[in-house]
């Protein structure tokens, strides 16, 4: 399953770091952050709870960029 979310982030490097953080999150197979379109595409592991995983993703991203926002 994949999901696409609008994100808010200020700098391109932070977007890269968010991508790295999301990819390391449990339940995520692959995450791509598109800074120009302000979109994050996340492919979940089978049977993963989307909301729970995204909460973890947001938490991991907040560590890197306290101002960032992911709509899910």
């Amino acid at each position, binding site marked *: 399953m994949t999901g696409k979310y609008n994100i808010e982030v200020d700098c391109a*490097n932070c977007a890269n770091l968010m991508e790295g953080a999301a990819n390391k999150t449990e339940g995520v197979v692959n995450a791509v952050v598109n800074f120009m379109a302000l979109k994050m595409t996340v492919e979940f592991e089978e049977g993963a709870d989307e909301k729970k995983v995204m909460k973890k993703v947001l938490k991991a991203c907040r560590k890197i960029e306290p101002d960032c926002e992911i709509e899910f």
Partner: protein
Amino acid sequence: MNRKQKKLLVRIIISAVFLIALRFVHLNPYIMFALYLADYLIIAYDVLIKAGRGIIRGRVFDELFLMAVASVGAFSLAVYSKSGDYVEAVAVMVFYQLGQLFESYAVGKSRKNISALMDIRPDYANVEIDGKITQLSPDDIEPGTVIIVRPGEKIPIDGVVIEGSSSLDTAALTGESVPSQVYGGDEVMSGCINIDGLLRIRTTKEFGESTVSKILELVENSSSRKSKSENFISRFARFYTPAVCALALTLAVGVPLFRMLILKSAPSWSDWIYRALTFLVISCPCALVISVPLSFFAGLGGASREGILIKGSNYLETLSKTKTVVFDKTGTLTEGSFSVNKVYARDGDDEKLIETAALAESSSSHPISRSIIEKYGRDIDLSRVSGVREIRGKGVTAEVDGKTVCAGNGALMDELGVKYTEAPENGTVVYVAVNSGFLGYIVISDTIKKTSAKAIKALKESGIKTVMLTGDSEAAAKPVCEALSIDEHVSRLLPAEKVAKTEEIIRSTAKGKTAFAGDGINDAPVLSAADIGIAMGALGSDAAIEAADVVLMDDDPLKISKAIKISRKCLRIVYQNIIIALGVKFACLILGAAGIANMWLAVFADVGVMIIAVLNAVRALNVKKL
């Protein structure tokens, strides 16, 4: 500018003015220190807070950290050396923030520009309910609903015009600026703008399946597929910042210790720390990290404005390396619709010949029959025809006005024992006989598209080899190739053989990539097999959109060379930016380590290069004249 940007701008102005004013004030050194510190905090507080938070969370090596350490360090140095020169520390921060502001403004601006180009999403659909026009969300409209589109409105859902006529602006979809005319019975694509007439349209698809949704999905997904250059940059940035920090530390601590302990000379701490701080300012990776994705984004945006949808930056990158373009013939270089090219009646009565043939073929749906009926152009009185018999692969026989008419190929004439004159022309020939007497023949062929010759020429000028693959006979293929001066062609290929042939071409093109351009009907396997699959006018075919990497909104082959030119321009800009950014940075880093570069040069290397790179990146959007 948004609120965040405005706030930052105000802070930059205040602290810059303050900084200049302080140059003309001479007070007690402690008061001066306090004033400079206040100014510094105005401009730098958020950076310091964020950097501090980063350190607490164990994430130290980012640009905020670099800037915070550099400016705090410069400040401390000024205190330590009692020079009272705090200007550098504050100025570094002012310029850094100015760079941030510019970056976010430029990115926001191009984001807006590009989304404005793709502003084809319809907000509502008009439906007549109880004699009143009601606006509904396009998502809620079932196929088969009659919707009303007034002048100036977008067609929200694909459908067929049932009433009214108008001209449609398809520029947002196809890049074609000449409006197209539609009348009752015509199919219309969603996303077109109705210019002058009221249209009633019966929808044929759901909104999610309509052209406009498909395009939006394509465009939104496009920049998520990253190119090699983008991946290189993000990987590079991940290693680069820690490496620079380590180097700076070596400069600040290692070198003085080395001087002190090994060389037994003065360590000159403040000099080396200053050099290390300069180093940190120069090293910010932002110019690089922002300009490469921005270039690709602008390139993709510029291409979609021209009606060329590229599915990702990686495809833009591959497209720029294209050395061979393989074309399908029918529907790609030719119109794909058969038309009567020549009529030869033995007795000179062409009208009569066409009429007879059209009547005999009237009940057939074969494209050849259709083209003869179209050529006849009048209503067919079916009562004049009876006893139609279709002979597969040969033609038809029928009773027309009581006479036996047969129309078909040479084999049919031989079978029926009709003596006929063989046509010298290329293409498909239909011979017509009445009561076993030869009446004449009709030559039917596919016409070459108007822009095909220009397209092939443009590709050749870009140094690209052209190949045509077709399932048709050599007799049909050769004249097309000669007319267009295509380098190579292979005829009589079955669909599977087309894939094999394309793979063979890919293997034999050692350097560079091979693109395949087709109309997407039954060539989806070849579209996937090629390095780059280009589907033309493929909006109707889901399989083609799925299999292709580049989708041309209309079926103009000239767009292929345009797409390649756009990709080459975009990649050129990407490489320029990488070279400028890395070149200037490395030069300044060396100068900084050698103690030649001061803080001001460092600020230029960071902010100045970023601004240049961003401005250069935005050029990729400008593709009209390519």
